């Protein structure tokens, strides 16, 4: 069965979901949403979604969108409570699992979504900001990471700013990231250091090491990432994300813009 890298990432994300969990969904992370819905459609029918859009809880799901994503997050929600109540009161009670996309991550799993460059007043690249990452990463147990385009820009020896707390000595509560998936492989943390668990089909360990800005540790039973099944691919393509919204995270430049335009026009959100 042919599959594309976005599909493999979403399938691997789905495999990290345990039935019954509350799954938090951030802003602009469709690869994650596709994976979480896939989990609900397969082995985890009793999960519930808590989204930054709509700020409530959904036990139903709808196909991914861009211009009409409120059809799901408002139209199918069990309840909507607003961001203050969701973030401060409701979600901490549910110990949600959440996948974050770091702009930089180090070997300890500290991550940065604030800016590139050491000078905070005049950064080389200002990023949109860290949302709730400095709040939940110091306190929660179920922090997961994903990186759609694995490179030395993202996997760095030294972060410019720590907005997400990893397996760091100053941690007093919660737990550092449990897992990371990139377009090259799957990783976990062992003794506070990231290590390669599996390499994706067609990717060599050497290549992953070259694309990583720090010394790469490798799990003793490192293996090839199991490919998606035909049923998983069919669900992603036909039911969960027929518009291909998930691919917006793996494409860049003109190809991404073309896809975005096509999606919006097909949605009638132009």
């Amino acid at each position, binding site marked *: 069965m042919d599959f594309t890298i976005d599909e493999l990432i979403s399938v691997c994300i789905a495999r990290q979901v345990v039935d019954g969990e509350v799954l938090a969904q951030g802003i602009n992370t469709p690869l994650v949403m596709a994976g979480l819905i896939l989990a609900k459609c397969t082995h985890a029918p009793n999960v519930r979604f808590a989204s930054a859009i709509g700020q409530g809880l959904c036990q139903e799901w709808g196909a991914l969108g861009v211009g009409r994503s409120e059809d799901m997050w*408002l139209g199918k929600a069990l309840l909507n409570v607003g961001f203050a109540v969701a973030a401060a009161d409701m979600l901490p009670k549910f110990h949600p699992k959440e996948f974050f996309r770091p702009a930089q991550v180090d070997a300890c799993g500290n991550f940065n979504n604030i800016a590139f460059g050491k000078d905070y007043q005049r950064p080389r690249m200002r990023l949109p900001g860290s949302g709730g990452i400095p709040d939940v990463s110091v306190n929660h147990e179920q922090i997961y990471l994903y990186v759609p385009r694995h490179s030395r820009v993202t996997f760095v020896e030294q972060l410019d700013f720590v907005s997400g707390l990893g397996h760091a000595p100053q941690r*007093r509560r919660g737990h550092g990231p449990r897992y990371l998936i990139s377009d090259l492989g799957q990783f976990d943390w062992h003794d506070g250091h990231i290590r390669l668990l599996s390499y994706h089909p067609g990717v060599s360990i050497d290549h992953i090491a070259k694309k990583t800005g720090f010394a790469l540790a490798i799990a003793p039973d490192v293996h090839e990432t199991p490919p998606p099944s035909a049923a998983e691919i069919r669900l992603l393509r036909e039911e969960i994300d027929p518009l291909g919204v998930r691919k917006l995270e793996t494409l860049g430049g003109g190809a991404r813009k073309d896809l975005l335009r096509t999606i919006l026009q097909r949605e009638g959100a132009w």
Partner: protein
Amino acid sequence: MSSFVSLAEAAALVRDATTLALGGMTLYRRPLAFVRALLQRAARPRDLTLLCFTAGLESDLLVGAGCVGTVRSCYFGLQDFGFAPMFTAAAQEGKIRVLEETEASIVMGIRARMAGVGFMPARAWQGTDLLKLRPDVKSIIDPYTGETLTAFPALRCDTAVLHALEADYDGNVKLNNNLGIDNELAYFADRVIVTAERFVKKIERATDGPIIPAPAITCIAEAPRGAWPTSCYPLYPLAGGEFLRYIDACNAGKFDSYLSAVLDQ
């Protein structure tokens, strides 16, 4: 108690060097008509402090027009459309001051203010660089457990602007459920301006959005399609083409001509 005004009259209430909160969430139900009215003033506001839980196109227009001195937000971007171009450039060039915020710092800051106390403690931020980037935010020791906590300082806000689906002739308004922190802004800001898609005789109570009652509202201005090009669920979806046109214009260095064209419409 709310009074009924024109959009221009509402926009005239915003003074230089005050804190302005813009309601809604990312690309949803943002008060764009109000922002356009602000930018159509003979004297545009200057040195505003923008307080947006999430800041998007409405805020990027104000930054690009030179109205903003300080930004307080936990996310300033255009979601699927990428970075907010004018904010990104202004922050990189050091032209605006960014007060780094997170969900907790804004929510706890509002709750402190609403409780009438100087700070609200939380576990957020401990061990991250946020405490270095915000030296004004102090840590305290919990007097009962000894745990070190972050003491998020009370926020204040001169003017909050919310966009509503409906307003009625008693001065109540109805929002939808993609709230961001609109419910909190309505009771926390010194002055609350509401723009509304339409007026109805009497708002019906329903589960698809909260009602903000007249005593919380300073004034209401009618603004049909007042969230465009952001969405106003379920009345209209976001106008994706307009977002792409905006980004293309900014990337080509043509923010000013884009803004002139939008304000002339």
